[in-house]
């Protein structure tokens, strides 16, 4: 077995182990867990959307327990200020009685940041995360301070309660690699949740992965090759969400105001690479891209008035865009090459 083979095997093992640890606590939500892990190894941030009580926060806390990484949690409220997240300079008196400014680190200075109910904070506070999420560093008092690597933001938001909330601006949303929808559990899963959470001894989660290992896997993932026709397929999907594109499907032309940004294409390909490697493959396939389409694009598409009025589901729309891109790719080929 070559060195590359062993690295890939190690990744597959780590991925499965981490998932297993999370699933010790979280019942169901298999896809959500997989996508959260995908986001972690792809080097992106993940936004979880779901009604209260579905275990979003618990999932993130459990994940942090499975990793040998620092974890901090910020409960976003309307009166939360940027300094409460980033940190601030405070006057400190030393032993000699001299006073000087000292930077007090905010909760953002952690490997894993749980931004709970992120849409309850004002846009100003939400924006405090922007630089950290994109650059991996924050600037306070004119000095740039790097965040620990790997830096991974997991945010949650409630789609129902809209009073007293501030929907995330598009620029902020675009920084999230994936937006995951946490659905209500099925009855079997609900029964399992009851059994697990009402037992006397809660499940213990082991730490299975360290920070450097995560960084090494991130490097490995970027080496996964992707064929040009698979890359073209990803581009066609992203372009298909743009109503202005000449080949975009009717559903996009009718219901979409703005399509996905190039970050969407990056998310598709990176997510596809993680998925391929997690399945023990050394290359990205079209199926990987298709599997990543909804989580990578659903928060990057802005519906127009007609789309909002008709209650168009973004996932359905993306599904149609993917189908159209696939059909176009197939139809342009002669029958013997399809």
């Amino acid at each position: 077995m070559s060195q590359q083979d062993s690295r890939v095997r190690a990744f597959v093992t780590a991925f499965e182990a981490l998932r297993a640890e999370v699933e010790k606590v979280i019942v169901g939500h298999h896809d959500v867990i997989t996508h959260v892990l995908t986001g972690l190894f792809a080097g992106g941030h993940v936004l979880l959307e779901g009604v209260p009580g579905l275990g979003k926060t618990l999932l993130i806390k459990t994940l942090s327990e499975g990793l040998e990484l620092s974890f901090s949690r910020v409960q976003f409220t309307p009166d939360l200020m940027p300094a409460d997240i980033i940190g601030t300079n405070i006057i400190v008196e030393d032993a000699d009685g001299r006073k000087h400014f000292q930077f007090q680190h905010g909760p953002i200075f952690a490997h894993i940041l749980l931004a709970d109910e992120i849409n309850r904070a004002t846009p100003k506070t939400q924006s405090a995360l922007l630089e950290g999420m994109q650059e991996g560093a924050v600037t306070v008092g004119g000095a740039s301070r790097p965040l620990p690597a790997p830096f991974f933001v997991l945010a949650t938001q409630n789609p129902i309660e809209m009073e007293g909330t501030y929907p995330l601006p598009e620029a902020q949303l675009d920084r999230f690699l994936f937006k995951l929808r946490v659905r209500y559990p099925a009855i079997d899963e609900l029964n399992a949740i009851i059994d697990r959470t009402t037992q006397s001894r809660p499940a213990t989660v082991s730490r299975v992965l360290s920070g450097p290992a995560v960084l090494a896997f991130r490097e490995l993932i970027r080496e996964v090759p992707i064929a040009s026709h698979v890359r073209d397929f990803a581009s066609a999907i992203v372009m298909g969400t743009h109503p202005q594109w000449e080949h975009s499907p009717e559903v996009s032309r009718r219901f979409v105001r703005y399509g996905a940004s190039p970050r969407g294409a990056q998310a598709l390909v990176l997510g596809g690479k993680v998925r391929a490697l997690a399945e023990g493959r050394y290359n990205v396939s079209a199926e990987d891209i298709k599997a990543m389409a909804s989580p990578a694009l659903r928060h990057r598409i802005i519906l127009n008035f007609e789309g909002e009025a008709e209650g168009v589901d973004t996932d359905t729309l993306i599904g149609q865009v993917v189908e159209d891109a696939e059909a176009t790719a197939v139809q342009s080929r002669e029958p013997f090459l399809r």
Partner: protein
Amino acid sequence: MEQRVGMDDLLGRIRREIRRRRGEYYGLRGAFWGAVAGFAVLLAKQGVGGTAPWVAGSLVVIGALAGVVYGVARRVGRLDTARVADRAFGLHDRVATTLEWGERADRTSLVDALVADTLARVQALQIKGVVRHVLPREGRFLPLPVVACLVLALMPPIPLPSGRLPDMLAPGEEEREDRTRSTMLEETTRPLAKDAQKRASFEERDFAQRAGGGGATTAGDLSAIFKDTSLANQRPDFNSFLKKGDERLKMLEQMDRLPDLQSDFTNSQYKMVFRKSKSLTGGLRPNQISPQKLRELLEEMERLGRKGGNWGNDAMEGMEALEGGQTDRALEAMQKALDKMRAMDDAERSGKGLRGGRENERGSRGRERGRGDGMGGDEQDFGEGEGLLPGRGRSGSPKGEATQRLRASPYDVGVEGESRRGRKEGFDTNLTGRAGSMASRLQYLGVIGQYRKMMEDAITREQVPRDYHDQIRNYFQALDER
């Protein structure tokens, strides 16, 4: 190395399969079009001769072979083949990615693992047929031309259409002509007088046509005669020919008096000549028209005129004008001759009682009434809701000379027809005669019936307020009294 051979082997097999399917596909298409060409050849079996079935069969085979060669020779891209393999064997784009990245300079270390993995999987594959059969549309319809070819090959040859205008004579007349043929042959073999030599072109042409397929030269084909400029340039003397007395013409006249219910009235002499004249002059200025073709047409009209038409002189005039280089005049003469042909054609149709019976009846009644009391009533000539379309506009009716039924009217009017130039055949009608200067009165008489009917309808349907009914009726009554 051995493993790489395994992948090349897989791609080679798929490439061959793609080529085979392409060969089938294009072979069927080629066979179809070859069969269509063979069908055309068999249609002309009379001209081609006994080799026609062989030629047709060869065309089918050649078409199929050409299609197969084209399909097999078309390039099959390596990456295309790799994608087919990926899809067929569920390899998740491994082969295509390996081929693309295997030779790249910026390949990562993971690519080596990918290549090894792909080769291992390819080695373990069970090779099967992966490229589906595609039946072209032509393939579905291939039996049609093939069966048609077989039927035509077994059938006797279909006679080819001749280049001359169809002779409108009835079969009985042909028989009589056959009887007179011997006389004509004798005439033509006699030494000709000086005048007769001038007319040789007409007689010879006439003979050649009546002789049908029995001539030594290409009988029935006028082109040979038309190309003989020495004959065509001689001035014909139609009157002396008539004086000489041709029994055939007399017989033709007698035959014309009989109603010929078997004739195809949609394919009259006039229509044939009209179509020819349209195709000759359509969209061209007089100086652009080929004098040779115009002469051919005029000669043909003249020939038809001799069979019992009154346009022969016009056709002669046209030919004389053409010889003098006056194409304009030749065209005018041709148009006159055409008008006369049309008039005769119309007269023949109505005379044989095939259509226009009511018009004739009404016309003759009007004439009788006009003779009787001298004052044919207007309302008898034009019933309620009927009337002509007088004026200088265009009429939708192709009927030209509708004057006869109006002769008894005090508002004597004729409607002349002229063939309208353009894409669609039609006639412009103009008023002539006394009513030309009384157009308004005629229009009134023509339309008053319609207006009165419309008025009654409107009142019946309560489209008019009740208070106005009497007023409107009084108005129309006052018009009648005037």
